[in-house]
């Protein structure tokens, strides 16, 4: 039988962490924190979702939409150091 569960790893900046966690909690998405980067103020969350389940897909696209908008306002490119980025 085909495994319907899919995984997605998201990099979530501290500024929007509470918003993303709220979505994960309210939609009961299985999740695991796979990384914490204290020096860059973000965490990495691995989310497990059911492929083809509209409710889960909308939650994922909700999170991705928040991250897209945040990155649009906050960054222009990947920043490596404050003098040369």
């Amino acid at each position, binding site marked *: 039988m085909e495994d319907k569960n899919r995984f997605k790893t998201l990099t979530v900046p501290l500024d929007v962490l509470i*918003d993303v966690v709220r979505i994960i909690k309210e939609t009961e998405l299985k999740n695991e924190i796979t990384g914490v980067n204290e020096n860059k103020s973000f965490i990495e969350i691995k989310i497990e979702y059911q492929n083809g389940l509209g*409710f889960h*897909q909308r939650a994922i*696209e*909700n999170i991705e939409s*928040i991250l897209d*908008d945040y990155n649009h*306002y906050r960054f222009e490119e990947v920043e490596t150091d*404050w*003098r040369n980025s």
Partner: protein
Amino acid sequence: MIKTCAYCKEEFDAKRIDKNYCSASCRQLNHLQRKAVELFGVTVKEEHVKPSIDTSGENVKTVLPEIRKQEEQNPAIELKKEKEYKFMPSKFVDEVGTLYKTRSIKHTHNLFSNDKLINKNLEWVNVRLRCLIEAVLFISERKSITFMDLAELTNSFIHLIKSEHFKKLPDNYPFKHFTTDFKNKLKRICVENEGDEEVPLKLNRKLKIDLIVYRCELRDVVPKIKFSELTFKSNTDE
């Protein structure tokens, strides 16, 4: 800016120039449609189904037939479907977007001038201020900064404010007070942490939102130039 959604073909007010879909649902459905064609060879008519339900600004579209079939076969999914998904916006991103929109109506025309001389000063300051704001945002997201780096950043603000270009800016320049206030804040942090090797530079939520918005406003008028490639004293300064 009014654009036409690439999926449902309806007009929507695009917050950003690069937005192609009116909602996250449309973006996802477009992706699913491509996937359906790829996996099942399903062809979907060009004319897409119009939104059936509207929940707090987020249109919920009718799902593709293949996906619906899968969902109907699974009682657990049916149960979940009873819970109507309500789009949950980010308060932080919304505040940034609202402030950016409000301020751009009020201030954008004050960031450049038809007068060549005034515009030269505006551009000179805008490029440097953008660079400093990008640096402050970058550093504030790090655990700490070396005291030497903080001193260098503070001195750059001081030189910028003392420059002839800054002094000649029009009174309605939108970042005049911010630049002076922020320079004072940095000076205070330097004095308080003198002798320490590492210093944390943390911004409160409001200041962070303000800086992200200022960065966006300056991004709209000047390019990003690296700190290492700029001087903050004008040629006429001592």
